[in-house]
């Protein structure tokens, strides 16, 4: 079975590198984007199984990207990457049907397990 693709969007290249290593260790293949436009582009061409999306980015920010993704695909798991666990923006993200959150300072291995679960649910859903 081919590795599932995950699109990770963050303007912080070091963070992208770390999360790429972590995801690959969890048997995912990783595509990265460093801004909103690149993210939309790669979302269309690469057909990822899930998207991890930084909310604070220069230019088109995470919320705009989420909005665009939801216009074409309402089911794909999209996780919001944030430094905080209790922000106003969270509520907004929820409004656009984000699947969950990845808090940067939390244990990433545990966060990725949540992502795996979400992908599983979404694929089960697709299968039916």
């Amino acid at each position: 079975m081919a590795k599932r693709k995950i699109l990770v969007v963050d303007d912080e290249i070091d963070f992208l590198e770390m999360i790429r290593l972590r995801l690959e260790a969890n048997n995912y293949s990783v595509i990265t984007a460093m801004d909103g436009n690149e993210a939309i582009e790669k979302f269309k061409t690469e057909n990822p199984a899930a998207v991890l999306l930084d909310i604070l980015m220069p230019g088109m920010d995470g919320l705009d990207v989420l909005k665009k993704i939801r216009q074409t695909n309402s089911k794909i798991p999209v996780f919001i990457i944030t430094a905080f666990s209790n922000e106003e923006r969270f509520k907004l993200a929820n409004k656009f049907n984000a699947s969950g959150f990845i808090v940067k300072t939390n244990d990433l291995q545990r966060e990725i397990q949540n992502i795996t679960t979400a992908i599983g649910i979404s694929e089960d859903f697709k299968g039916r």
Partner: protein
Amino acid sequence: MKNRSTNKKVKSHTAANLFITLLFVVFITDVVTNVITDAFRLSILPESIVDGFLVILLAYPSLYMLIFRPLSREIAQRKATEKELRRLAAIVESSDDAIIGKTLDGRIVTWNRGAEKIYGYTADEIKGKPISFLAPSERFNEIPKLIDKVRHGESIEHYETIRRRKNGEMIDVSLTISPIRDASGNITGASTISRDITEHKISEELLRRAKEQAELLFRISPSAIFTLDSKMRITEWNDRATEITGYSKEEAIGKVCTMFEAFLCSKECAVHKITDIKPVFGEECPIRTKDGRTLTILKNTGRLKDKNSNTIGIIESFSDITERTRIEKLKDEFISTVSHELRTPLSITKEGISLVLDKIPGPVNEQQAKILTVSKNNVDRLARIINSLLDISRIESGKIEVRKEAFEVISVIRQVLAAFELKTKEKSLTLRADLPKEGIIIHGDMDAITQVLTNLIGNSYKFTGKGFIEVKAKDKGDAVEISVADTGIGIAKENIPKLFNKFQQFGRVTGPGEKGTGLGLAIAKGIVTAHKGRIWAESESGKGTKITFTLPKI
């Protein structure tokens, strides 16, 4: 009542008079009849005289009316006058004022009970003594002057001076002195009414001091102060108000505050009926100064009331907090930005260490793993400090959001306890709970309360080497009381008051394990206070600590 008894007496007088008159008539009639009869017998009287006798008999009632009636009336009047005099004497005697009669050479001749009360001397002790006996030596001079005025027929009213009581105490008195005249109008003495005005003088002095204090406070206050009358017109305006708003006293006084353009925050002024106004405390609002700047002020107001508690005006005090507000906002933004900026590199470092520790890039030897674990723990600690800093900054700026949602607090306690179960077991500590069987629903922020419990139990865990940690909850009717007690190192008595301050760490733990931030209890207090609850500590060095907090149910 008095009138009726007087009437009765008058009637009995009349009866007596009638009786005497009757006796008199019988006597006179007898004498006259005998004389006439004898004269008739002697035939010296003509028959017409006998007719005269009848005339006399008939004339008698007129005689009675002319002589006896006025006589009896005069007696009755004299008696009434005597009674009136006795009544006046009784009034004088019972007066609280001292009423003193004295001769023109200043000797005391009459002395009422009021005088006895005020000066302390009995009438027997003082009668015949000179009036100067009552004056302190420095007031001797005024007495001849006063008597001299009276001698010339003048009255003296409300003359305030000082007199000495029998016990030596000085008292403030107000004197009214009038001449006493005899029937022919000659001045024979003087009457003095003296009133003890010591109390009055004291309250006058207190009033003066209060007024002086109020005026001084109005002048030197670092806050602007102004007052409004019942029609919302500015009546007083201090210098600080001028400094802040730019409007002078002359410009401000008399203006209706709704018209006064300096006040954008016209919460008070928007209300037309002054009686509807509720005093405000610590309200922040913007105002516009005379030169068009907008300032943020912090204001308090209070009602001015008359003696019947009717609102007759408003007093308002405000200070300019524009600069403070700006700095606070800057600080909040700074903390928020800094902590965000700090978190990203922190999370990258942490994840890097984790990746190596999880052997993803390749094998790690034991020593390397040990070093990396310590590094990771300290990165976690940094993250905790940043989180706490952000929390405390939110709490301090009053921005802590207390979501009021109904939740069951006992199960929340159980959850937090479950999270500590393994850790305490590893340390061989007993984790005890004394919780009510029934759940307790409260309204509050579940996450925040979970944090309070985690902070408190976490502290106990950190500072307790052996023994137990006990969490208790009690239903207190309209509130729930929760306590976390331990058998740990305790806190020295002198440190208890500082316990809830920021960055206070007593009994720092050395060796491995989670290090504290010194913010846990400050945050707990902030959260409990935001829920309108109370938090306090009981502790004894070496014996343990008990932190208790209450949360209102609604």
